[in-house]
C-alpha cells in the first residue's frame, strides 16, 4: 500500500506540475515521467496479487459525511489496474505524437496531459475504494476528465455537441448509479461496500431493483445497446488517443462495476444471468450491425466497442448462470472468457484507434469513402492495423479468438440444471457466430477500403506526410500483447486466473475441478493449432518464393473490358455492405437525400444515404415531441370514454398485481 500511495502522490504532483510549468515540452516530459513512476510503483503492488499474492488493504480517514474509507485491492481490482495504468501511459505517449503540432505551438497542452493523469487517478479510486461515496467521486472524476479530453478541439461546434451529449449520458448513468446506491444505503444505513454485501446477500425485491438499476448504469457507462448513443459521436469527435482510452480502458469501469456487484451479491439468481445474457447478446449483435454501415473509421470502431462489451457481458451472464446452477465449470468459462475479453478488447481496440489517429494525421481524413491504397505509403500503420483488425474479428491465432473460444465452449457445456434453458444458450452461441461473421465483413471492409486499392480522393494524398514514431511505438507494444495472448494462450489465462478464482469462490461447490478451470490439455491443443498454422504458413512462404516463378510483371487491373477506369470507380464502403444491409434492412435506419436528374436536359443530381443511429433518432424525437405526446393523451383522457376506461383498467390491473405480489 505504501508504494501505491507514493504512486498516487507522484501522479497528482505530476499533474499539478504539468499545468504550472512553462513550455509545452517540459510539461509533457514531466507528465510522462510522473505517469511512468506511478505506473511502476502501482504495478509493483498489483502484479503480485494477480499471481496469487494476498490482497492489499488500507484505511483512509476523511471528514464528516464519509469518515472512513476502506481501501482494498483484490484480484479483480488488481487486474483492472494492471492493464489500465500502463495502457493509459501508452495513450499519453501516443498523444505526444498525435498532438505534436500543438506541442510545438503556443497552445497550453499541459491541461490535456494533466487530465490524462486525472484519468489515471480515477482508476486508483474506482478500483480500490470500498466506500460508495468515494466510489462516486472517482466515477465523476473519470467522467469529467473524459469529457474535457473529448472536447480538446472545442472550437468546432460538432465536437462541443458530441462532448455535451457524452456529458449528459454519463450523468444519466450516474443518476442510475446513485439510485441503486440509495436503495442499498436505505436498507443498510451505511456507505460501506461491506454492509452492502450483507444486504445483497439476501434475496429481496429491493435487491432485484438495485440489480436492474446498477446494470443499467454500468451498461450506460460501457455503452451497451440501447444506451450507446453517446459513444459513436464522442469517439469520432475526440482525439484518437482519447477515443482509444475511452473505448479500451476508461469505460471498462462499467464492466468492473458489474463484476464488483456480482461479487457483492454472492449467490445470484438465475434471472440475473438470463437478463445480462439477453442484454449483452443484443448489444453484441446491434453493435456489430452498425459497424458495417459506418463510413467514419472512428464511429465504426466506437460501435465495435458496443459489440465487444456485449461479448464480455455474455461471459458474465454465463458466469452468473454457472453460479446460480452451481456449475463451477460454466462459471469459470463464462467469467474467464468475459474477463479475458476485457483485456483483449483493450489491446486491439486501442491499437485500432491509434491506427485511425495515425491515418488522420497522415491524410487529414478518416472517411472510408475517400481513402484507399494507404498500405503502400504507411509502412507501419498498415500491417499493424491489419493484425489489430484480425484480432478484433476474433480470428485465430490472435487474442480475440481465445476469449470467444472460451465463451463458445462455455455455451455448449452440458448443464442439465438449466433444463429448457439450454436451448437459448445454444442460440446465444448462434448469435456469437453471426456476430463473428458480421465483424469479419466489417473489418474486411474497413481495412480493404482504407489500405488497399487506390486513393478514392486524390486530395487526401500528401507526399510529405510521415508516420510519427511516438504513434507507432504504442501500437507495436499493443500488438506484442495481442500476439502474446494469441500465440501462447497460457499467458492470457495466467492473467485472468486470479480474478476468475475470486468469482468462482462464490460458488457453493469448491471441488478440485476449480483448480484447473480450463484444462491444460485444451490450452496446449490451442497452442499447437496456432503453431501448426504459423509453421505451415512459414513453410509455404519459403516454398512459394524459393521454388515457384516470381515476377515483376505488372499490368493494369482487369476492368472487364472497360478501358477508362478511374479511382472513384472502385467499390465503395456503402456498396460493400449493401447486400448485408439488405438482409437486416428493418433493424437499421437510413436517411436519404436525393435530387435525381429529371427532364430531357437534366441538371446535376445527387443521391446520399446515411445510416443514422435508430435509437438516437427515436430518443431525440421523444425528447423533442414528448410534450406533444403527453398532451395528446391528456386531452383524449376526459374526452374519449373508451380510452379513459382502458387506461383506468390497465392502472387497476397493475395495482392488483402489486398488491398480489406483496
Amino acid at each position, binding site marked *: 500500500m505504501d508504494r501505491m500511495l507514493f504512486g498516487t502522490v507522484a501522479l497528482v504532483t505530476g499533474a499539478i506540475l504539468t499545468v504550472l510549468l512553462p513550455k509545452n515540452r517540459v510539461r509533457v516530459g514531466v507528465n510522462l515521467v510522473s505517469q511512468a513512476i506511478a505506473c511502476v510503483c502501482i504495478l509493483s503492488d498489483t502484479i503480485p496479487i494477480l499471481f496469487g499474492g494476498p490482497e492489499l488493504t488500507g484505511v483512509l480517514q476523511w471528514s464528516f459525511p464519509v469518515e472512513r474509507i476502506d481501501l482494498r485491492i483484490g484480484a479483480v481490482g488488481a487486474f483492472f489496474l494492471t492493464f489500465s495504468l500502463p495502457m493509459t501511459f501508452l495513450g499519453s505517449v501516443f498523444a505526444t505524437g498525435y498532438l505534436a503540432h500543438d506541442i510545438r505551438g503556443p497552445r497550453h497542452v499541459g491541461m490535456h496531459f494533466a487530465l490524462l493523469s486525472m484519468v489515471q487517478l480515477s482508476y486508483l479510486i474506482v478500483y480500490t475504494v470500498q466506500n460508495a461515496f468515494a466510489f462516486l467521486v472517482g466515477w465523476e472524476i473519470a467522467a469529467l476528465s473524459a469529457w474535457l479530453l473529448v472536447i480538446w478541439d472545442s472550437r468546432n461546434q460538432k465536437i462541443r455537441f458530441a462532448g455535451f451529449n457524452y456529458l449528459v449520458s454519463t450523468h444519466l448513468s450516474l443518476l442510475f448509479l446513485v439510485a441503486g446506491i440509495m436503495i442499498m444505503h436505505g436498507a443498510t444505513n451505511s456507505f460501506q461496500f461491506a454492509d452492502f454485501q450483507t444486504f445483497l446477500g439476501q434475496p429481496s425485491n429491493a435487491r432485484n431493483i438495485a440489480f436492474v438499476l446498477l446494470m443499467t448504469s454500468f451498461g450506460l457507462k460501457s455503452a451497451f445497446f440501447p444506451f450507446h448513443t453517446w459513444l459513436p459521436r464522442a469517439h469520432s469527435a475526440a482525439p484518437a488517443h482519447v477515443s482509444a482510452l475511452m473505448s479500451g480502458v476508461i469505460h471498462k469501469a462499467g464492466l468492473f462495476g458489474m463484476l464488483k456487484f456480482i461479487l457483492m451479491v454472492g449467490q445470484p439468481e438465475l434471472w440475473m444471468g438470463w437478463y445480462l445474457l439477453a442484454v449483452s447478446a443484443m448489444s453484441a449483435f446491434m453493435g456489430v450491425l452498425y459497424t458495417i454501415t459506418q463510413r467514419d473509421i472512428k464511429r465504426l470502431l466506437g460501435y465495435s466497442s458496443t459489440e465487444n462489451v456485449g461479448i464480455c457481458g455474455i461471459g458474465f451472464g454465463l458466469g452468473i448462470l454457472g453460479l446460480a446452477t452451481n456449475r463451477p465449470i460454466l462459471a469459470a468459462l463464462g467469467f474467464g472468457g468475459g474477463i479475458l475479453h476485457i483485456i483483449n478488447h483493450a489491446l486491439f481496440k486501442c491499437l485500432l484507434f491509434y491506427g485511425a489517429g495515425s491515418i488522420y494525421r497522415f491524410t487529414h481524413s478518416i472517411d472510408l469513402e475517400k481513402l484507399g491504397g494507404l498500405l503502400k505509403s504507411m509502412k507501419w500503420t498498415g500491417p499493424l492495423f491489419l493484425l489489430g483488425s*484480425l484480432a478484433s474479428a476474433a*480470428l485465430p491465432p490472435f487474442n480475440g479468438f481465445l476469449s470467444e473460444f472460451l465463451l463458445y465452449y462455455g455455451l455448449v457445456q452440458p448443464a442439465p440444471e438449466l433444463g429448457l434453458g439450454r436451448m437459448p444458450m445454444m442460440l446465444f452461441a448462434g448469435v456469437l457466430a453471426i456476430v463473428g461473421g458480421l465483424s469479419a465483413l466489417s473489418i474486411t471492409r474497413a481495412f480493404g477500403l482504407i489500405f488497399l486499392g487506390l486513393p478514392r480522393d486524390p486530395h487526401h494524398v500528401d507526399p510529405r506526410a510521415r508516420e510519427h514514431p511516438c504513434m507507432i511505438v504504442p501500437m507495436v507494444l499493443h500488438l506484442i500483447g495481442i500476439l502474446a495472448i494469441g500465440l501462447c494462450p497460457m499467458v492470457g489465462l495466467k492473467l485472468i486466473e486470479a480474478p476468475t478464482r475470486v468469482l468462482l469462490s462464490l460458488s457453493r461447490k469448491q471441488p478440485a475441478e476449480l483448480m484447473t478451470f480450463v484444462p491444460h490439455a485444451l490450452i496446449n*491443443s490451442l497452442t499447437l493449432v496456432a503453431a501448426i498454422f504459423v509453421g505451415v504458413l512459414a513453410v509455404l512462404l519459403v516454398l512459394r518464393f524459393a521454388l515457384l516463378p516470381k*515476377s515483376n510483371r*505488372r*499490368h493494369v*487491373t482487369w476492368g472487364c473490358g472497360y478501358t477508362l477506369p478511374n479511382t472513384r470507380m472502385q467499390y465503395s464502403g456503402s456498396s460493400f455492405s449493401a*447486400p448485408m444491409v439488405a438482409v437486416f434492412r428493418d433493424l437499421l435506419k437510413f436517411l436519404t437525400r436525393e435530387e435525381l436528374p429529371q427532364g430531357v436536359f437534366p441538371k446535376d443530381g445527387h443521391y446520399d444515404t446515411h445510416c443514422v443511429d435508430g435509437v438516437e433518432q427515436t430518443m431525440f424525437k421523444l425528447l423533442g415531441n414528448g410534450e406533444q405526446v403527453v398532451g395528446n393523451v391528456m386531452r383524449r383522457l376526459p374526452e374519449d370514454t373508451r380510452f379513459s376506461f382502458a387506461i383506468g383498467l390497465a392502472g387497476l390491473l397493475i395495482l392488483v398485481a402489486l398488491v398480489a405480489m406483496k
Partner: protein
Amino acid sequence: MSYLLLAFHLAVVFVAPIFVIGIVNRVKSLWAGRRGPRLYQTWFDLVRLLRKTPVYSQVTSWIFPVAPLVILATTVTASLLGPIVPGYAPLGFAGDFVVFAYLLGLGKIFLMLSALDTGSAFEGMGASREATYSALAEPVFLLGLGTLAWAGGAHSFQDLVIPNGSWAIDAVLRVTFAGAMFVVLLIEAARVPADDPTTHLELTMVHEVMILDHSGPELAIVQYASAMKMTMLAGIIAAVLNPFSAMSYPILAVLFSGAFIVLVAMCVGLIESLIARLRFRALPLFTFAAFLAVLTSLVVVTANQGEFH
C-alpha cells in the same frame, strides 16, 4: 490402425480435391452428353499454372501474393481438425469445431482482401457478396455442431459425429445436419445454386470474380485450397452420416466415407446440371432454410433432453 486412418485422412485432404472437382465436371459433362475431361485433369491444370510466371496488377500490394498462402495454410490447418470418419481426426480437442470454423474464416478474409487489393469494382463486388453469404452461413454451421455436441455429450469435432442416443432421434439430427451442411458446402465452395463457377459474366459471380486478377501460382493455390475446402466439407457430411465408427470398424468406416464423398461430389454435379443459380436476393433465404433445419433439430433435442446429458 491409427496410421491407416491418418494416411486415409491425409490422402482425402490432399489428393481427393483433384478428383472431387474431376467428378463434378465429369457428371456435368455426361449429363450434357459429352465425354468430359479426365478425372484428374485438375492436376494438370494446377501444374501448368504453377509453372507460369504470374502477372500482377499495378495496384496490388504485398497482400496480393501473400494472401493465397494464408488461405492454403488455414485450409490445411483446419483440415487436420475436421473428421472424415466418425471418431477420428489427426487433431482433436474440446471445442475444436470453433477453431475449424474460425480458421476457414481467416482464409476467407484474406481472399476478400486480395480481391480488394486490385482496386477493381468487380472484385470488390465479389468480396462483398462472399462476406455477406459466408457470414450468414456461419451460425448454421456452429449452431448445428453445437446441437450435435449437446445431443452427443461430446465436445470435440471427431467425437460429436459418432452416433449416440436413440436411433430415431439420432437419425433425424444427422439427416437435418447433413442437409444444412450441404447448403453450407454449396455456399462455401461457390457451387450452383449459390454461385456459378462457370459463368462468363463477371457481374453474376461470387468466388470467381474475386480471383479475376490472380494468375500463375497464385491462381493455382487459391483453386487448390478452394477444392480442398469443398472436399473437407463433403468429408464432414460423410462423417456425420457414417454409421461405422473409426474405432470399431475402421475399414468399413473408411470405405463408407470415401464412397460418400464421391456421392456428394456427384450430387453437386447433378445439381449444377439440373438447376440454375439462385438470384442473389434469394440467397439469404436459402441460408435461412438451412438455419431453420438446424433450429428444428435443436428443438428436437430440447424436447427430448431427458435422453441426453
